[in-house]
Every structure is written in C-alpha cells, then in structure tokens.
C-alpha cells in the first residue's frame, strides 16, 4: 500500500533542498565537481513499493550509502525486470557496496526485490544490516508474533483456496489481494527477510529497539539515527485505529478468538468445499457423535426437504408474473463462516505494518529530521 513517506525535512532557512545524487565523476564533463550535499535521497519509482537509497556525505571521499527496503507489490507487471533495473542502478551508484541495508517489515512490496534480484544482491558488499527487533529469533515476543503471523497467513491461504472452490470468488479475491502482501507463495516474505539477515557481516544483523539511545556511526559524525518503532507493547502492535480501544487477538493458539476459525480453515478439505469435517478435539463446538457430515445430510429426508430439494411450500412468489420459485439454494450459508477470513486478513495486514522499523535520521548541525516510518500507523510510533 502506498505510504505517506517522508517529509522533506523541516528546513530552518532555505537552503539544502534534497538534491539529486550527483553524477559519478566519470560522466561529468570538465570543471570542478561540486561538493556533494550532506544528505540526499533517491526514491525509486518501480511502482507500488518502497526502495530508498540515501547518500550521506561522509568523512571519506566516498558517500555513505543506506538502502531502505526493496520491493514492489504483487500483481505489478514484469516485476523482476523492474527490480533488476532498480538494483542495477543501486549497484552502479554505490559502486557495489552498501553501508547499511534496512528492511522495515515483512510485506512483499518492501522485500520482494531480495528474492527477485537475489543474484544482483549477491554481488553487492553489505556492511551492516538493520532490522526491527521483531525479527530477532531469540526474543520471545518476537517469536510469538512471528508464529502467529505464520499460522494466520497459512490459514488465510487455505481460506482463499476453499472460498474459490466453493464458488465465492468475490470474497476469495478480496482475501487473496490482502494475502498478496505476503507474496505469492507461502513463506515468500519470510524467505526474503532470512536472506537479508544472512547478508549481515558475520550473519548478525542489528536488531533495532525503540527507546535505545540514538545510533551514531563513526563514518558519519554529524548524523544520528533514532529508532522510533516498532513498539514493544503487544497491544500497540495490534492496534490499527487509535479510536478503537480494543486489542484484537490474532492469537491462533487455543483460546484465541480466531482459534476456531483457523482450525476450521486448516482442517482437511471435505467433499463439499465449504464443509467442516468433525474432529475429536475441543476445537469443535460439539462432540463428534452429534454431527452429521454434510454428504450424508443431503440424503436425510428432513434436510433434503428443507435445504437441498425444491421448496415445497411455495415459498417464493413473484407478484408480477404470479410465478412461484421453488429453488431454495439461495438460502444456503455454506461459505458464510469463511467470511471472517477477510477481517482476519485485514487485521494481519495491519499488525504486520505495525512491526515496521521506524527510523528518524537527524542531522545534528541543523536539527533537520528525515522520517522513514515504513508502513507503521501513527499510534505505533513511540
């Protein structure tokens, strides 16, 4: 989704507007090369997706490069070619070396490039990798959130399949477009982020926590990096709209409010695609002995008369033509229980957005700030 990105920095006096990255010395004509600006931002326009290349004037002759995200949304035509163009340009401008690579969160439109152009990334030297603390495999809350996200994502992919099979294509498409933020195949975004983390020096990326002191780098004496998010509070992570003060549970474990839905989505596809097969676990509302499988119910006279066959009491009557309609199938609710997957998809999407790494880059001399919030919603920013 499109994000309102940064601000042009709050300028004190009119000077240093963000300038384009100057051409590399080889291509300039004669004459002195002007001094590079202190910070410049190149925002790539591959489509709906983020990729920012930030160049800082550094103590050495070569600028300090930071790349924030690299992706384009699922459904963009010819994505690999586009991302190849973007990453080739990055490689050329930076001379095949990035000082800091940042991946804000696990959505396809921010990380697809790490999969689609992995061969080009393999050729780049990457000195540091920064990701949010939610990617830390040793943090218990992070692990819990990631597990929930995986379960929900898988359940939603199943929901899309089952809805489509049952003929409810409208809902299937809507859920599908939301699940698309996790890539076309299961675990695509996870794969991208794993690659990013692997590329850190020594395989150890920096896990950024909000509230820690500002990050300063020896190569950049005049710059401070503030980490403003994601919040460490689970409730804030799951909040999408500040006016709704309810924290919805994406907790897919037993007892979570979505647990039954997810269990239903994951269970085997029955003969009728919308059917729920009875199991023996406590996740079913009634004991198995009280259930009749749908395939059998079709032949029980009671159900056949009232749900499957033609209606026999002349239910529908069109006044204009005095015609009676006996078809009852429009009253079936076979797939209604899967409708909740759309909301679950929205919630999942929101919660993932809120795990965005939020960086504020401060130029100490002038107090100007560049804010890169990823896709975080306002309340999640600390």
């Amino acid at each position, binding site marked *: 989704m499109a994000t309102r990105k940064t601000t042009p920095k709050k300028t004190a006096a009119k000077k240093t507007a963000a300038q384009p990255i100057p051409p590399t010395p080889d291509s300039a004509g004669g004459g002195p090369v002007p001094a590079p600006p202190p910070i410049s931002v190149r925002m790539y326009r591959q489509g709906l997706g983020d990729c920012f290349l930030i160049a800082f004037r550094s103590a050495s002759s070569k600028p300090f490069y930071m790349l924030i995200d690299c992706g384009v949304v699922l459904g963009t035509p010819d994505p690999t070619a586009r991302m190849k163009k973007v990453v080739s340009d990055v490689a050329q401008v930076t001379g095949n070396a990035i000082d800091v690579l940042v991946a804000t969160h696990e959505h396809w439109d921010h990380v697809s490039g790490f999969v689609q152009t992995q061969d080009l990334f393999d050729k780049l030297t990457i000195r540091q990798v920064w990701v949010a603390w939610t990617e830390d495999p040793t943090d218990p809350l992070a692990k819990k959130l990631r597990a929930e996200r995986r379960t929900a994502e898988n359940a939603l992919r199943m929901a899309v399949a089952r809805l489509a099979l049952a003929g409810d294509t409208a809902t299937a498409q809507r859920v599908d477009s939301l699940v698309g933020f996790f890539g076309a195949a299961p675990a695509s975004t996870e794969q991208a982020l794993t690659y990013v983390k692997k590329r850190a020096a020594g395989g150890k990326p920096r896990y950024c926590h909000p509230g820690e002191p500002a990050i300063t780098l020896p190569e950049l004496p005049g710059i401070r990096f503030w980490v403003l998010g994601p919040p460490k509070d689970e409730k804030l992570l799951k909040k999408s709209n500040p006016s709704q003060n309810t924290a919805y549970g994406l907790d897919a474990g037993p007892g979570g409010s979505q647990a039954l*839905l997810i269990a239903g989505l994951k269970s085997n596809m029955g003969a009728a695609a919308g059917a729920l097969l009875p199991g023996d676990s406590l996740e079913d509302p009634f004991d198995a002995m009280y259930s009749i499988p749908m395939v059998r119910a079709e032949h029980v006279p009671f159900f056949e008369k009232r749900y499957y066959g033609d209606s026999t009491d002349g239910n529908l009557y069109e006044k204009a033509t005095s015609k009676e309609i006996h078809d009852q199938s429009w009253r079936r609710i076979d797939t209604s229980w899967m409708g909740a997957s759309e909301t679950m998809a929205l919630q999942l999407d929101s919660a993932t957005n809120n795990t965005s790494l939020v960086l504020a880059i401060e130029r100490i001399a002038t107090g100007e700030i560049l804010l890169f919030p990823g896709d975080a919603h306002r309340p999640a920013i600390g």
Partner: protein
Amino acid sequence: MVYAVAMTTIGRFEQALGRTALWAPYMPAVKADERVRSYYVQRLRIYPHALREQNAFYSPPTKSLLFGYFQANRIDAGDNLPGGLVFSCLSHDVVAHETTHALLDGLYRYYQYQTNADIAAFHEAFADIVALFQHFTIPVALKHTVARSQGDLRKDNLLAQLAQQFGQASNGSKALRSALAQPPRSTDYANATEPHDLGAVLLAAIFQAFLEIYEARIADLKRLATGGTGVLPPGDISVDLVNRMAKEASTAADHVLKTCIRALDYCPPLDLTFGDYLRALITADMDLEPEDQFNYRTAFISGFRARGIFPEDVRTLSEESLRWQPPKIRLAPERMHKMLGSLDLTWNLTSNRRQSYLRSESNGFLLWRWLQENLSPHEAAALETDLGVYIRAGDHVPKEIPTSEDGIPKLQIQCRPARRIGRRGQQLTDLVVEGIQRYIVTDPDTGLPVTYRGGCTLLIDIEQERFRYAVRKRVGSKSRIATAQNFQRMAADGSQSYFDPGREREPFAMLHRGE
C-alpha cells in the same frame, strides 16, 4: 432459546404495529437492463451455530440470522470458562438485536442505504433499543438491580453495569457504555460522527426518557414507602416494594418499547434523521396515549434535547409543534370515499402473512391507478407538492426521474394497516401509504449514474376518510442529495465504512467484526 427469543421479539413488533410482521422480499441480482424482481419470503431462517467467530448478523441476501461461536480467551475469559466455547446464540440480547434488524429491514428496505450519518446509525441503534428494553420488560431481570439500588436506577455504577452486560453481549458497545454512564451534554449529537457513537447517543436519549418515566411512575410508591420524606431507610427495601418497583420498571420499558416500534409507522421510508424519529415518537405517542398521565412525551423530548438532537423545521419543542402535520391538500369527502373505496380494506389482522403482503402490494397499485385516473391537474400538482414525489406525466417532471413509456413517473407505492386506540377506547385503523421514487443523477467525477431517492409516508384515517399526517422527503431535493454525497465521500475516506449494501454482500456482518 433462539426460537423463543426471536418469536418474542416478533410478537412484540406485531403487537406494537397491529399487523403481521413481514420480511424483506428476496431480490436476486439482475443485469443492468433487466427488470428488478422481488419475491415474497415466508420465513426467516435462523442458524444458531453458523459462524466460527465472535459475531452474529442478519444476512439480507439469504434472509437469515447467523450466530457465531468462539473460544473464550485462555488468559482473560471474563465470566466464562477459559478456552471454553461461548455461543452468541445463547444471549437474549444478541438474538433480539439481530431479529430486530430483520424486522426493520422487512419494514423499510431503504434504511440500509446510508444517505446521512443518522440513518447509517439507525439500524444498529434501533436494534439495540429493542434488545435493551425487551430485556427490561422481564421483571425478574430487573428485580435484583432494583433491590440493590433501592429503586434508584440512576445510580451510576448500576447503569454502567447494565450497559456493560449488554455491551458484552452486543458487540461494539464501548461507545454505548460511556454514553449511558455519562451525563448528557448538548454537544453530544453534534460531536458524534461515527455511526457507533451516534447510535449510542440515540440509545442514551431514549434511555433517559425511560428513566424519567420510571421515576414518574414510582413517585407515589416512594411517597407511600417513605411517608412523604422521599428518603428510603438504609439497607434493603422491602420485598413488596422491590416487586412493585420492578413491575413499574418493566411496564415503563414495555411502553417505551411499544412507542419506539410504533413510531416506525410515522417515519419517512428513507433518509431518516434522529430529529424525524423524535417527531415520529411524539406523534405515535399522541395517537397511542392521548392522555399522557406520566408525561411520557415530555420525557422523550427532554432526552433528545439534552443531547442536542433537534428536528428541522419546527417552531418550538412543544408536543403540538413536533407532531407531524397533515398535507395541505384537502380532497372533498366524496373523492376520499371513492379513493378508499377502490382499495381492498378487508384487513385480516390475525394471520396469513402472504395475504397481507400481496394485499399491501395490490393496494399500492390500485391506489396509484386511482391517482392517475382521477386527480385533476390542479389536485395532482398540490399533492405532488405536499408529498414530495411526482405522480403524473408532464413537463414539470425533471429528466432525472425515470418514467414509463407514457412518460408517467415511476413511483412505488405500498399500503399497510396500522391499528390504534381512539380517545374513547375504540379501535381504529389507519392506512399507512408509503411512496418511493428514484432520482438518477450522473456523477460528475465518474460519469456513472447514481441513484438517489425521495419518498413519503402518508397516514389516512379510514373511518373519517381524511389525511392525518404526511412525512415527506422530497425527491430531487438538492440539500438531501448534497448530504448524501458528503456522507458517501466521508465514508469512503474513512478506513472503515460502516456498511454499503451496494458493495458488500453481507453488510451487517462487517458491523460487528474487527472489534
């Protein structure tokens, strides 16, 4: 359980309205140039275990109620077994709420169309009103509360607790909780823009009216119990007193509920505002209970006024001023007689839903035909002005009104009976005529046609053969169209549009999800 509560709710509606309740007709989707077809639906279907989520909703496409079940949280389960199953179909309030949605939809199909903020909130608010007050009509439910509060239902913690129980059952009621627990402010209505907040304001206004009515009803009991001091002794009050007070509370709830339901017949068929609803409440109450012993009407007016809900185009907030006015046109008595004679008014109030439906539709058509054939141009023009719809063909009909091949503007008319008790206790029946007309405008931004509607509710006294009231929403009114456009725009901007029957297959489902 589900069946019992649903039937109770339906019974209450039928008793209040004085006729059999009808369900909304089934209208399958049609292609652009096909005729719209509508089919009578005999029965509402109820699925008590339909969904695996913390939700319950009325489904207009399938004409059924769907209830969900879910697992209680393992860590914070409230009063439930942690990790245990919670069935929303076992909650009286939820079942009553959803059944009310179905009943209201059966009465006014166009209340689903959100043309202003108030009507967007009305479905939910009305369903909450019916569920809440039906809950209170059960004396046993109130006895405990009355005993504990010593009959003072205004005690803050008790109100909040009632709302909380209610809120736990019916989803999305944080707004409700605060609206009932806090004192009213005259800016409440103006400041509420979200449908949930607006709904809470309406419910709080009606609840305040109920409290005032209740207090008026128990005033003599208190005087008797306290010997005139008005101060009850500390500790428990006597069981007899509790019983009497609880009975008064449930009677008050019963009356308030009846008036609220009855008022629907005095509402416009679309684009309702809360101010209109207040006028409908007052008019309905004046018809139901001309002698207002306990000042019910003042209670309603003050409940609305305290929150800044004011009807438009009234001079004062007195009962007489708020009452709807009859149309200005006066047809001669023999003309009225002929008009009513053309209809089949042998109402069979006790039964056969299908007959009622068919008769209501056929009477609508007969009335329309009588108007086409028998009105003089002068009368037709006067009636069109009074009712806000176009009846006969002519150059005065704007091009936005769809017409038949003969140029007659298309107008949907329905008739239904409404019983009331006259001043001397005799039973009277009114004819309620509802007319709806479309107005199709091309949207300047998209170039697509957009349909707006206008209409009117006309109440006719069958005995005296005269028009009693006309409630109009003029078709093509620029201000109403502007309001509708603004509201649609705001709803589209907001991340959560309340529901949109055009887009969503299950508009009521989204109301309660995502909480």
